[in-house]
């Protein structure tokens, strides 16, 4: 009934707040700004931090935050701010690539289970359940133990461990869509199975997963940093947040900035992707 929509409009107006400045908007706006900064840092780090992240200056080692070094320096006198800005690229790259890999793998598994027969569905289902039963990070560690450390293995390891969750969602979506009136209408029109899959089934099955993947990128960044922290990802002295955390740990007692700021960068990345993902989710549900 038309009444429902008018009522919803009514409840919105019941809480008068100044323009767009509402609690529901401030957080996504801050998250979007953070994400913008991170993406810029990853694409053009030179703009944001002209200093060389690898330049050593032993005289200026262990300096606290100051005008010359906004976020202080590390044990070799390298500028932490520059290292964090330049560290955005490997972190985000690993996060995005791992998520993309996880999604791709999940798509194969989810489509096989969703479109295949009962046996294929059951088989894929059991594999996904076994993978879900193991903690993701443990799965990644096992893979790195087998394949050796490095950026590429980190991407594959994190991608592998995120795939089962996505696969399960895609399978459910495909199962529901397969018998939906919308797909049946396309079949009745005489479209080929390939066209139905590409133009109706996939886009609609992927929509909710893509929103979820926005949340997943933050998670993947955290995991990639964790692996670097353990010395299994990007190797020092390359600027990478997890590796910076590990390096600063030894000096935590007197040079807190060496761990605090890289940690803050990880938290900010994860938090902004989560907030953005959630607001996308809400918008998708509300539509």
């Amino acid at each position, binding site marked *: 009934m038309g009444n429902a929509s*008018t*009522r919803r409009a*009514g409840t919105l107006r019941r809480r008068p707040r100044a323009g767009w400045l509402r609690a529901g908007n401030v957080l996504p706006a801050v998250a979007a700004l953070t994400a913008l900064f991170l993406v810029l840092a990853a694409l053009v780090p030179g703009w944001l931090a002209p200093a060389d992240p690898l330049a050593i200056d032993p005289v200026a080692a262990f300096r606290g935050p100051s005008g010359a070094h906004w976020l202080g320096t590390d044990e070799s006198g390298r500028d932490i701010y520059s290292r964090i800005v330049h560290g955005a690229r490997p972190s985000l790259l690993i996060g995005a690539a791992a998520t993309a890999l996880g999604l791709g793998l999940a798509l194969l598994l989810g489509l096989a289970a969703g479109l295949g027969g009962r046996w294929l569905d059951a088989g894929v289902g059991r594999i996904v359940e076994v993978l879900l039963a193991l903690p993701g990070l443990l799965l990644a560690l096992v893979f790195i133990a087998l394949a050796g450390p490095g950026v590429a293995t980190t991407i594959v390891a994190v991608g592998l461990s995120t795939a089962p969750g996505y696969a399960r969602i895609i399978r459910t979506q495909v199962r529901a869509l397969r018998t939906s009136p*919308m797909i049946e209408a396309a079949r009745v*029109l005489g479209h080929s199975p390939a066209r139905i899959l590409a133009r*109706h089934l996939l886009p609609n099955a992927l929509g909710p997963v893509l929103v979820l993947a926005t949340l997943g990128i933050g998670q993947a960044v955290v995991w990639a940093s964790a692996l670097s922290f353990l010395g299994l990802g990007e190797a020092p002295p390359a600027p990478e947040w997890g590796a910076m955390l590990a390096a600063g740990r030894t000096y935590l007692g007197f040079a807190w900035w060496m761990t605090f700021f890289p940690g803050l960068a990880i938290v900010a990345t994860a938090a902004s992707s989560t907030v953005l993902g959630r607001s996308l989710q809400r918008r998708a549900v509300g539509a």
Partner: protein
Amino acid sequence: MSAAPLLRVDGLDVGFGGTPVVQDVSLYIGRGECLALVGESGSGKSVTARALLGLAGRGSRVAVRTLDFDGTNLSGAGQRAWRRLRGSRIGLVLQDALVSLDPLRTVGREIDDALRLHTALSPAERAAKVAGLLESMGLAAADAGRRAGELSGGMRQRALIAAAMALDPDLLIADEPTTALDAEAQAQVLDLLAGLRAGGSSLLLISHDLAVVSAVADRVAIMRGGRILEQGPTDQVLTSPEHEYTRMLLRAVPAGRPRGTRLSAPTGRSDARPHAPDAKLLDSSPSIGGPVLEARNLVRAFPVPGGGILHAADDVSLRVEAGRTLGLVGASGSGKSTTARILLGLDVPASGTVKLFGEPWVPLPEASRRPRRTRLGAIYQDPLSSFDPRRRVGAILADALAAATTGGAPEGAHDPAGLLQLVGLEPALAGRHPSTLSGGQRQRVAIARALAPGPRVLICDEPVSALDVSVQAQILDLLDDLQARLGLGYLFISHDLAVVRHVSDRLAVMRDGRIVESGPTEQVFAEPRHEYTRALLAASPTLATDTSD
């Protein structure tokens, strides 16, 4: 009946966030009287009813000059006062009993709730009262132990009425109580409501259906756009309506209108009508009356959870002819939709065959069937769910046109704009998203899409069941026009006898997966041979009015 009415409302206004939804509504309900509030979606009838219960909702602004219930002034009453009245003095029955009843609790406990809250009866007395209530509603006392999901739609609705009647309220407000029910269940609930009124309860019946209302109500108030247009004794309003809108509503009711009569008034817009008949187009199609879709001895059964077998189609044979309409009527669960799915090649029968233009159609591998799918189209009850939610109208139609083989699409409708004009819509609608369209516009888009590949047969599965009566009239007229112009054969599936009678040349009555009777529509209506057909006819409310103008 005492002189003072039970409920008297004068000058009721309800607004949401500055938008008036109900304006200056005045009505009264006498003791033991039934007032029907009739209007289409968005007319404000439900908001009016809720305001009378103090339930207008958050964000609403309610203003009323007089709101008098049984001698008590209720204008400006607080929530506490309303809670005392609701349940005990005024009962409410909603449209969908499935969502109104808690699925995890038994029906008996639902009814018991009101008794526990408002009376000092002992548990044993309450149990006896619940059993008595259920029996008075035509249910078994044992039904108290069942949950909502275990009852049929009609039983659920009666259980809900039992819950509303638990405290013997003076006034019962029923909001579309029979809309979700099929003809038989609707007849049972209407009987029940009539019985309650005869027993001295006052009734406010809210409905979009004039035929339902005419069976029960003493007086009728017609609502539109938040205002009451006309109010008076049922007979008077139905036989000599004063307002043009009421006349339009009455004209739109398909009951008793012979095939081919227009139900909607001409809109006056030239592009709102399909173009004149296209002689060239009809050349290639089979002559009117020739068989286009023939089903023979279809059998399809489903295992039922907990053992047993549901015979959804049991030896079903039927024939759709070019340029003619076959009506398929039956209660919910009678197997109509399963039959439609088999005909569309979406479900495989256990045995039996379907032929399309004399060629094998079912059973057949999908790959060899697909090239001929363009000849068979379908429209559904809920068009919105059959559209890709990511696409706009134009993209949906373009996608359907891509399925058409050369020369498939109807003349002048080779692009989305042409298709939209064919079904009486503005081409500008192509840029809209289906969710922003009205129900009638959505169904027109669905028809346009079905026509895009140039089908010769349309399977229409409850195409107007979700529409307001005036919109229903327009869609039925449109289908009629398109049939005349394009020579289409229709299989028209509906639970609504009046609609089926209006659109069909031939009629098949279905029950429990079997076609119990079939024949020329008027013959089936005039001399029903099967007892089930007779029961269906008796259960269908009719509008005994003469509105020929």
